[in-house]
C-alpha cells in the first residue's frame, strides 16, 4: 500500500509540474506579456518600450527560469530601477526596511499580486474558494445521494416502468449542460415575465416579483434557499444524470452476475439481495466516477458562477482570464489542477479499498 501511494503521489507531482508549466508557458506567451506591459504602464508604448519594460520587470529571462522563479526553486530576479533603488521579484510590496528573501515562489507562499483586483492573489483565492466551497458542499449534498438512489432504483429491476422513467430523466439531464439548464431554470422560476413567477405573483402567493432569485450575489453574505437553490440545482442536475447512469449500468451488470443468482437461490429476499449482495459491488464504479467528475464540476462552477454572478472561484477565473491577470490565472490553474489530481488520487485509493479483489504488493 505504501509503495502504491508513493508511486501515485510521484506521478501526481510530475503531472502537476507538467501542467503548471504548460499553463505558465501559455499565460506568459509574448502577446500576453505585451498586453500586460501596455495595461500596466501605458497603452501607447512602442515595441521597444514594451521590451525594455518587460526587461526591467524580470520578463526577459528564459521561460524555464521564470517558471522556476514563480515556483520558488530559482532565486527571484533582481535589478535596479531607473532611480537606483534595488528591485526584483521579491522586492514588491515588502514592509519598510525588510530584507528581501532570495526565493519567493508559490512554494514560499508568495502567489503574486493580482493586477485586476489590486490585491494579493492569496487573499482573492481564499475568499473565492470559500464561496465556491459552500456551493460545492450543497451540490454534493444534493447530487450524490439523489444520483445513487436513482441509479440503484432503476438498475435493480432493469426494464420496469420505474427504470424507464428514471433512465429517461437521467439521460435528459446529461443532455442539458449547465448553461442550458441554468437558462431554463431562470426562465421558469426567476423571470418576472415568463415561467411560473408572474402567475404566482398574480395570486399573491409570493411577495416579490419572482419565486427564486435570478442571481446568487446575495448568497455571498447569507445563503438562503431562495438565492441558492437555482445555482445548486443547475450544477447538480448535470452530475445527477451522469452519475445515475453510471450507477444504473453498474447495478444492472451486477444484478446479472452469477453470485446474485446464487444469493437469490439461497433464499435471500430481494431486499437483502440488493442491499447486502449487490450494492457494494455496484457502487465501486460510480465512486470513481464521482471523483473523476471534478474536472467537469469545475466547468459547471465556472458557468454557474458567471450566470448567477456569484463571485467564487469560477467567477474569479473568468475575470483573471478575461483581463490578462497572469498571476491570478496561474494561481487559479494551480488550484484547479491540484483539486483534480487529489480527487483522482482519492478515487484510486478508494477503489482499492472498496474492491477486495485488488491486492497491493
Amino acid at each position, binding site marked *: 500500500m505504501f509503495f502504491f501511494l508513493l508511486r501515485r503521489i510521484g506521478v501526481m507531482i510530475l*503531472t502537476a509540474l*507538467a501542467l503548471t508549466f504548460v499553463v505558465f508557458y501559455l499565460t506568459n506567451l509574448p502577446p500576453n506579456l505585451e498586453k500586460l506591459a501596455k495595461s500596466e504602464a501605458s497603452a501607447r508604448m512602442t515595441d521597444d518600450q514594451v521590451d525594455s519594460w518587460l526587461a526591467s520587470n524580470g520578463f526577459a529571462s528564459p521561460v524555464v527560469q521564470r517558471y522556476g522563479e514563480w515556483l520558488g526553486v530559482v532565486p527571484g530576479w533582481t535589478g535596479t530601477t531607473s532611480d537606483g533603488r534595488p528591485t526584483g521579484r521579491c522586492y514588491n510590496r515588502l514592509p519598510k526596511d525588510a530584507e528581501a528573501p532570495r526565493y519567493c515562489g508559490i512554494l514560499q507562499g508568495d502567489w503574486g499580486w493580482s493586477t485586476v483586483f489590486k490585491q494579493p492573489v492569496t487573499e482573492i483565492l481564499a475568499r473565492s474558494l470559500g464561496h465556491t466551497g459552500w456551493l460545492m458542499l450543497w451540490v454534493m449534498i444534493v447530487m450524490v445521494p439523489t444520483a445513487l438512489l436513482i441509479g440503484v432504483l432503476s438498475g435493480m429491476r432493469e426494464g420496469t416502468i420505474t427504470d424507464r422513467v428514471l433512465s429517461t430523466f437521467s439521460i435528459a439531464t446529461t443532455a442539458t449542460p449547465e448553461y442550458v439548464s441554468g437558462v431554463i431554470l431562470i426562465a421558469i422560476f426567476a423571470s418576472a415575465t415568463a415561467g411560473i413567477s408572474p402567475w404566482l405573483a398574480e395570486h399573491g402567493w409570493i411577495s416579490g416579483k419572482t419565486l427564486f432569485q435570478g442571481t446568487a450575489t446575495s448568497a455571498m453574505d447569507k445563503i438562503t434557499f431562495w438565492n441558492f437553490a437555482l445555482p445548486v440545482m443547475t450544477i447538480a442536475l448535470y452530475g445527477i444524470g451522469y452519475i445515475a447512469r453510471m450507477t444504473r449500468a453498474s447495478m444492472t451488470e451486477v444484478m446479472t452476475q452469477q453470485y446474485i443468482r446464487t444469493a437469490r437461490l439461497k433464499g435471500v429476499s430481494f431486499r437483502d439481495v440488493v442491499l447486502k449482495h449487490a450494492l457494494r459491488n455496484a457502487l465501486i464504479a460510480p465512486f470513481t466516477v464521482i471523483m473523476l467528475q471534478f474536472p467537469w464540476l469545475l466547468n459547471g462552477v465556472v*458557468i454557474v458562477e458567471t450566470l448567477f454572478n456569484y463571485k467564487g472561484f469560477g467567477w474569479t477565473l473568468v475575470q483573471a482570464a478575461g483581463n490578462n491577470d497572469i498571476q491570478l490565472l496561474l494561481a487559479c490553474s494551480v488550484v484547479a489542477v491540484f483539486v483534480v489530481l487529489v480527487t483522482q488520487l482519492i478515487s484510486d485509493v478508494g477503489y482499492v479499498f472498496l474492491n477486495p479483489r485488488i491486492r497491493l504488493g
Partner: protein
Amino acid sequence: MDDLSWTGIFTHGFIRFWPVWLALVLTFAVSIRYRRRLALYGKLFDSTVGMIGFAFVMFWVFTALFAGMIITHDPLVQLSGMKNALPGAAVKSPAEGSYPWYLLGGDNLARDVFSRMVMGAREVLKIAPAATVFAFIMGITLGLPAGYFGGRLDTFLSFLANLVLAFPVILLFYLLVTPEIVETGIPMYFAAVLFLFPVIFFSVLLNSRFHPNPPRRNLYVGAVLVIGLWAYLGLAFNLDPTGVFAMDPNLLNVFVSVVFVNAPGVFRIVRGLVMDIKARDYVAAGQTRGEGPWYIMLWEILPNARGPLIVDFCLRIGYTTILLGTLGFFGLGVSPESPDWGSTIDDGRKLLSIYPHAALVPALALMSLVLGLNLLADGLREESLRD
C-alpha cells in the same frame, strides 16, 4: 399584419420545416422497410429509444442541410422596431415579399431568433461531428499501439492522455482559444500534428492490408498520400494553392482545441478495448501466420471494437456540441456575429429575466440535439448487446 398567437406560431413554424419533415418521413420509411438487411443501423429501428434519438438527430441534420430554405429572415440582419420582440410578433413595415413575422421573436439586436436558431444548427453540425471524427482518428491511432504493445510506449502515452484529462476543460479553453494564441501560431503547430494523423492512419491501414500485393498497395497508398497531404497543407498551413482546403484561423483554433480535449478520452477507450481483444485466438492466428502488428491492430482488432466505439462516437458528438456551446457561452473563439447556439445563449442571458425567449430557444435546440444523440447512443448500445 397581426401578431401570431401560440397556435399560429406552431402552425407557421411547423410549415417552415416542411423539407425536414419530408426528409424524415422518407428516411424512416426506407430504413424501416429494409431494416433486416442493414445490420446494426437496421436494428436501431427495433428500439423505441433509439428511434426517438435518431429522429431528433436527423431533424437537426436535415435542418442544417435545408437551413437556407427554412429561415425566414437573414440571421444577421436587424429590423427596426423588432428589438426584443416577443415570439410571433409581426414585422413592422415589412419589405415586399419578406416573411411577415418574427416567429420566435427578436433578440436584443433586433435579429430573428428563429432564423438564427436554424442557421445555428448548421454552425454546430459543421464543426462537432468533424471534430469528433478527428479526435477518433487521433485516439485510435495512438490507442491501438498503446494497448497492443503495452510497456513503455503505453506508460508514456497514458501519462500524456491523463495529463490532458486532468486539465480542467474550461481553463484549457481560456488558455488556448484566445486571439493572442492565434498570433503566436501555436494552433498551427497543433494542427500540423493533428491533421497528420488521418494521413498516417489511412496509409498504414491500406499498406498493412495490401502489402502482399505491391502494385495495388502503391496505387492505394499513393492516392491517400496525394490527397491527404494536399488537404493537410491546406487545412493546417493554409498552403493549398487551389484553395479547396482552407480553414479560418479562428475556426482552426476552436477545432484543434476541441479535438485536443476529446482525443485522450477516445485513446483510453480504444486502449482498453484493444487490451481485451488482443487476447482472442484470431489475433493469435494472425500472429502465427506472420501478420505485421499494424494489420492485426487495424484489421483484426479495430473492426471488432466497433460496437462500443460507435456508441461512444454518438455520445462524444453530443459532448463536443456541449463544449462548442461552452466556448460560445464564454464568447471565445468564434466570431461574435455567429448564430451558433452557445454564443446566442450568451447574448440572450443578459436580459434573461425579462425576455427569456432569446436565450431559451437556442438552449432548447442544443438540448434536444444532445438528448437525441444520447438516446441514439443508448439505443445502439442496447441493440448491439442483444443476441
